[in-house]
């Protein structure tokens, strides 16, 4: 059940209305049932994976909670990690690993071949396994008390607004809210609806209208001239941002209708002045997850320079791999790591750490630079193979075919893209719901009108699933 379908438009109001109508003690049952139903709408059998992950982490958590020292808790943490990463490996990385191993066998002259598995990747598996892993690790370190109520724990793992594409929430933030007796609040309702409206607009009108154009370029780059390839590259940067930002915004809005606040996942990332800031503004829940559960345990920056370099590369490499089982993602992650360190090096050497105030010339120039660098790296992310990415770059600097195909970008797509860029600039360090709520009544309703009309009339009609669902 995608957020931008009629099914969700029916499902969400039913859940919200029922949530406020039924007695408080049954609310978790309703939300859990709704979340499982939401997930089963993709493939019924895959609910078993969530249930397995939930049960293992619940039991591990309880057991760890009963044990005094870390050493005795360790086996339970290992169990939790093995089960979660095992599931992730089986469904997401097994075929990638066997494919590469088979290639290696071939190279060294071995005739063995490990057969591939034909398994469909369960939607959102990378998100909920990471979410539940964070709980186990927190309990292990004693930062989090083990949850005794299986129902609430299961709901934490599967809470439908953020189940399939995040934001990846921490137990300490989400679980207490699930237990609160939320009263129907006019502010939550209006703010939630505002966010859903804005998110739908960003996804359906901006992202989905760009998708088809970008697909043309990446499917047959050899048919296009370098200018059109450049347009394709730039447009993909906006496509992936609007697609994922739109999804996260709808998720946050949907949760807010139930009185639950989930974390912001984006803060105008393309206005970041450098790569480091970009990652503080892009997919924040994943960046902070890697920071807290990988970078810090590796020693962070309180280690030797060489070790720090290694830590950074490991974090970015694993972050790349998290996105998908393909060399393109690994290279994308590694390049981000190198770029991050390169920038740190240059900034340090030339003392470029100067703080630029928002919207100043310095800020704008640095943001443009960051945007271009990130856009170049997105080529690896979007391409099906490393060779594909390289061919895009080669074609970018070649003359192109004698009779090139021209990339047709409708005027309406340009207009909506511009609207999105302007709104992103206006909303720098702000959120749409609170920003629009402060506007004069009439202007506010004009904006609602434009958004509603845009969603209905200009939404892309092809079925482009959310990009991050595949992760």
């Amino acid at each position: 059940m995608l957020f931008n379908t009629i099914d969700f438009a029916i499902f969400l109001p039913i859940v919200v209305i029922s949530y406020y109508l039924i007695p408080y003690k049954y609310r978790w049952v309703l939300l859990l049932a709704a979340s499982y139903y939401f997930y089963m709408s993709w493939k019924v059998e895959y609910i078993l994976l969530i249930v397995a992950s939930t049960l293992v982490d619940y039991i591990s958590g309880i057991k760890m909670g009963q044990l005094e020292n870390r050493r005795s808790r360790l086996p339970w943490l290992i169990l939790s990690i093995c089960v979660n990463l095992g599931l992730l490996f089986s469904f997401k990385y097994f075929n990638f690993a066997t494919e590469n191993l088979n290639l290696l066998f071939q190279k060294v002259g071995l005739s063995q071949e490990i057969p591939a598995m034909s398994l469909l990747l369960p939607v959102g598996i990378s998100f909920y396994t990471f979410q539940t892993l964070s709980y186990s690790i927190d309990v292990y370190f004693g930062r989090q008390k083990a949850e005794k109520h299986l129902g609430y724990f299961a709901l934490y793992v599967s809470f439908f607004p953020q189940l399939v594409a995040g934001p990846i929430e921490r137990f300490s933030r989400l679980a207490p809210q699930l237990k609160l007796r939320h009263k129907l609040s006019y502010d939550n309702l209006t703010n939630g609806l505002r966010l859903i409206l804005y998110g739908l607009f960003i996804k359906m009108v901006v992202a989905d209208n760009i998708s088809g154009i970008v697909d043309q370029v990446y499917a047959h780059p050899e048919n296009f001239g370098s200018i059109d390839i450049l347009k394709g590259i730039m447009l993909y940067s906006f496509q992936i941002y609007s697609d994922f930002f739109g999804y996260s915004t709808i998720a946050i809005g949907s949760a807010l209708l139930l009185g639950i606040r989930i974390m912001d996942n984006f803060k105008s990332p393309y206005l970041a002045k450098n790569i480091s800031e970009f990652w503080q503004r892009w997919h924040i829940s994943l960046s902070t997850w890697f920071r807290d559960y990988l970078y810090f345990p590796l020693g962070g920056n309180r280690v030797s320079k060489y070790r720090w370099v290694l830590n950074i590369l490991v974090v970015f490499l694993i972050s790349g791999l998290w996105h998908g089982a393909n060399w393109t993602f690994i290279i994308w992650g590694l390049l981000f790591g190198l770029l991050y360190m390169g920038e740190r090096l240059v900034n340090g050497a030339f003392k470029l750490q100067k703080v630029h105030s928002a919207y100043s010339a310095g800020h704008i120039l640095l943001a443009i630079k960051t945007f271009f660098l990130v856009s170049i790296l997105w080529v690896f992310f979007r391409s099906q193979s490393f060779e594909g990415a390289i061919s895009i770059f080669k074609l970018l600097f070649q003359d192109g075919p004698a009779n090139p195909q021209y990339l047709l970008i409708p005027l309406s797509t340009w207009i909506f893209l511009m609207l999105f860029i302007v709104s992103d600039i206006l909303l720098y360090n702000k959120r749409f719901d609170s920003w629009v709520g402060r506007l004069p009544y009439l202007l506010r309703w004009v904006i609602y009108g434009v958004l509603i009309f845009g969603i209905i009339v200009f939404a892309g009609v092809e079925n482009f699933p959310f990009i991050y669902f595949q992760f």
Partner: protein
Amino acid sequence: MRERWTYIVLKAVSILVLFLVMNLLYKQLFFEKDLQLYSSLINLVRDVPLEADIIYLGESSNNSAREDDLDKRKISDFIADQYPCLALYDLTKPAAHAGIFKVLLQHMPEESEVETVIVTLTLRSFNAQWIHSPLETSLRKSLVLLKPYPPLYNRFLLSFKAYDIKTKEEREADFQEQWLADELHFPYEFPHKDVQKWDRWMAYSGIRDKSGEVDRAQTELACHYIKAYGFQIDTLKNPRMAEFDAIVDLARERGWNLVFNLMAENMEKAEQLVGDDLIFLMNENRELLLNYYRAKGVLVVDNLSGVEDSQFTDQNWTTEHYAEKGRKAIAKRVAAAMKIWYPDDYWEAGY
């Protein structure tokens, strides 16, 4: 309290007005463009003049021809030959079926003078693979803007994918599931419980050529025939029946003479490749359709075995694509059957 209610009512009215204005704007400025982009099949209906007497609704069977045909015209043209004084128009859409025809007919203007509607009835369209065909998604999408609701609401349904929007994989899973669910019943002992088992048996045992070797191409074709015709229509569960029933109801409502043109299938090849068991099922389904729709007052023209093997254009696949002689044979039977309504207008063609 009263003020609060006034505020709520005022807001509700404002929202209603907002939607009314949006609907008007959309209808005036964007609807036609969207129709041409996403539902251009409406043009098939628009192209039919109000004075048309007969309309023929067909899929690719109507306009497929073989290269060596001297006369490459459509089946509907051949029917028109036999009623020279009547105006016959066709609405041909490849891969269409009763679900699409129903919507097209619903859009026939009230002022239209059409008296007779001929609808293609393809036996194969009742099978699981056609019902769950990957083409369904785009066909269903093309119907959304044609729903009988305000244009803005239709566009909302289109934007929010309010149609059968399954992926190719999901549809494949659906027909595989149906193959397993639909058990085959014969009045005699039959070794295969369902079409999937029958298909597998054929694939494993294979068809042998004169030298005794398994002929892969023929075996594959036989398997394909089993999957295409190895089913028994359930009048209550088969969605195609409901769609044809809706056409019958609509014809009754609009006072049209209704003809169902049961298209020819390559029964010779079916018998040669698979044998009597498959022919039994095809005949059983034929009888069911004839009896069921004749009882509802529809003129059902039985062409199922009316075209010989050599007249089927595709020899390596199941299609209802016929060469000239085949198309003419079908047209002749349909035209002859329609004499009951137009005895004075009928002119017997020389083919």
